[in-house]
């Protein structure tokens, strides 16, 4: 008997231990994931990332004739690895761009520098102001080997100091920003909700307010429920087969575009919106409807003026849920909108969302983990905030409901 109890105790202890251990797997996983995203992505997270283009623009320019050399000392304190040319009044530094490539970045241009404004040799007429975040690619001289960025900033400054004239120089704006994909994602959210909310809310109203319990209604419900089990890549194929040709024939689109992506996302979101809306319609007390009908309102008025306003918090959380899903969806959009990362976004043109931006970069050679982690950090931040708001909404709504019941 005693022995038995001891065995039970040992067994219990063992089972308890594995239970405790497994519960902390999730906690550990979350911490590691967030830690990874922060350690890789946080240093790229700045305002430039959000405002800059992904593709960089290159310029070829030369110095305006008859501009005197600078021969001046820098007016600001320059960092350790910054190389400065007193003759030209420019400071360069070795750096990495947002895509992780080694570049020579312009760190500082003196106010009297002949390079402050340079002559555009391309199609532009305006002189170009050399900005401090541009990357210098090469500087060519009249009788001296061309200084290339891959030999580093120090080499470039030495070449500048050794020459009194510059034949031409090539530089580019910093690339690797995600402005384009952010705009596409915002467009996607707008259009998807535009398509999905009216249909979803309408269907929920039909199912909750009008449909009589019958085999037919059950069939409708099952059909809608089944949509949740379809993997998102299959939705992508459907978008590719129906919505892409549809938008191509109706608009000036030539392939996957924001509209076809939004339509595909709308189908993915329908079951979620319908279910959440219906749940919030269900908790609207029947007394409200009967009171409204008794006062002479018809079913339409009752639905729009009484039922829907009471169900508003539920519909709001359905919308927030939907936004979270739109921001995170990748597999369906790879097919339904495409993977081309663009800077100039039009509704019918090619572009891609933030999540697919990550996928496109990770499947490229070499993969850009830093920028991907930064985008992932933004996406996770958005979804966590949305979830938090939904939680607050539902608990407050629940409290109000319960409070009402107690009165």
């Amino acid at each position, binding site marked *: 008997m005693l022995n038995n109890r001891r065995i039970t105790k040992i067994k*219990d202890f063992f*089972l*308890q231990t594995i*239970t405790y251990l*497994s*519960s902390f*797997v*999730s*906690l550990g*996983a*979350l911490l*590691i*994931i967030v830690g990874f*995203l922060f350690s*890789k992505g946080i240093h790229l997270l700045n305002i430039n990332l959000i405002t800059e283009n992904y593709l960089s623009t290159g310029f070829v320019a030369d110095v305006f004739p008859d501009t005197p050399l600078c021969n001046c000392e820098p007016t600001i304190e320059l960092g350790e690895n910054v190389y400065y040319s007193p003759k030209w009044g420019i400071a360069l530094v070795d750096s990495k761009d947002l895509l992780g490539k080694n570049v020579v970045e312009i760190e500082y241009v003196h106010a009297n520098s002949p390079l402050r404004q340079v002559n555009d040799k391309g199609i532009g007429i305006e002189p170009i102001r050399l900005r401090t975040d541009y990357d210098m690619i090469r500087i060519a001289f009249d009788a001296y080997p061309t200084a290339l960025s891959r030999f580093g900033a120090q080499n470039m400054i030495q070449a500048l100091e050794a020459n009194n004239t510059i034949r031409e120089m090539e530089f580019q704006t910093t690339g690797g920003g995600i402005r384009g994909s952010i705009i596409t994602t915002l467009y996607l959210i707008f259009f998807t909700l535009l398509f999905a909310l009216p249909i*979803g809310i*309408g*269907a929920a109203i*039909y199912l909750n*307010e*009008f*449909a009589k319990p019958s085999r037919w209604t059950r*069939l*409708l419900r099952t*059909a*809608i429920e089944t*949509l949740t*089990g*379809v*993997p*998102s*890549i*299959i939705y992508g*194929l*459907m978008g590719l*087969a129906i919505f892409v040709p549809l938008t191509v024939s109706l608009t000036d689109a030539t392939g996957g575009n924001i509209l076809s992506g939004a339509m595909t996302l709308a*189908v993915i979101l329908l079951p979620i919106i*319908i279910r959440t809306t219906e749940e919030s319609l269900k908790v609207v007390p029947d007394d409200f409807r009967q009171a409204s009908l008794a006062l002479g309102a*018809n*079913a*339409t008025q009752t639905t729009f003026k009484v039922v829907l306003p009471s169900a508003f918090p539920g519909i709001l959380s359905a919308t927030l849920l939907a936004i*979270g899903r739109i921001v*995170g969806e*990748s*597999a369906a959009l*790879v*097919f339904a909108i495409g993977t081309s990362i663009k800077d100039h976004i039009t509704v019918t043109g090619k572009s891609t969302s933030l*999540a697919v931006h*990550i*996928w496109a970069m*990770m*499947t490229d050679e070499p*993969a850009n*983990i830093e920028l991907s*982690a930064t985008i*992932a950090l933004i*996406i*996770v931040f958005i*979804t966590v905030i949305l*979830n938090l708001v939904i939680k607050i909404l539902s608990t407050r709504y629940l409290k109000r409901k319960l409070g009402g019941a107690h009165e």
Partner: protein
Amino acid sequence: MPNTNVLIHKQNTARKRRVDQIMKAIFTFTALLSASFIIIIVGIIFVQGFRPFITDNHGLGPVNLWRFVTGDVWLIGNTFASNLYSVGYAIVSTLFIAFLSLLLAFPIGVLTALFIAKIAPKPLSKVLRTVIETLASIPSIVYGLFGSGVILQIVYDLSATFGYQSKGGNSILAVVLVLSLMSIPTITSISEVAIRSVDKAIIHGSLALGASQTQTHFKVVLASAKSGIFTAAILGIGRALGEATAVSLVAGGRRSGVSFHLLDSTSTLTSLMLEGIKETTGLDYDIRFSVGLVLMVVIFLTNLTLNAIKRRIGTVHVK
């Protein structure tokens, strides 16, 4: 003049009724539209997926259906010049990977659910529930990125210590780890609901009979909740079978042959559909619909089998 009043009232009522009818028709239409999408999806995948088997494919000749489903080389010959596609090996790998992921995620998920629902003190279970909800809301591409940045490195080092040359860590093991991480929150949250709804009387009965807390948890609570827990497993395996982008980042793109070695690279049906998608056209593009069709059939058959098993074991009903 009571007569006109009555008339206006009658007109009003008639108009209201007409508006009602129109609105009801609109609502009915939206419901029908929502419900019809499942039919549209299945239909379009069938039509597009079958096309490579029955058309000439711009001179390449039709793809052999039997060969497609059973063969173990993705493509014999050159892209755009051959119709010898097969996904048989990927079907086996997909099922194998889904099974392994479930094997790893299921115990962890269920035990976490048990801990949250029955064992943990209230504040702790609140924290853990939030953790699970957060994990569930993280999009799959982020799991893929995590797999690519962290898990691949771990697997690579692991295989190096075994003296095994892995393809940069891209392997079955990496896919399984990523998929398990993704399905743990699904399994946990559904199991937790099932565990919490177990009748208190059964638990008290077990305790009164002298069973210890832990014995009750494992032999009574989990057993009573098994129907709900099984549902969690079905949903977990569904997520593992259908996941695409995350898997494609850690699978390694195996072009032929089934391998059950954990450190070998692999291809699932979904990762094959995404492979080389950026630069392809013609049959090499269309064949992805056929892979999608196979994926749908695999998921459907898996669900059917699991639901049949569930009906056989799920005799204890949970409220």
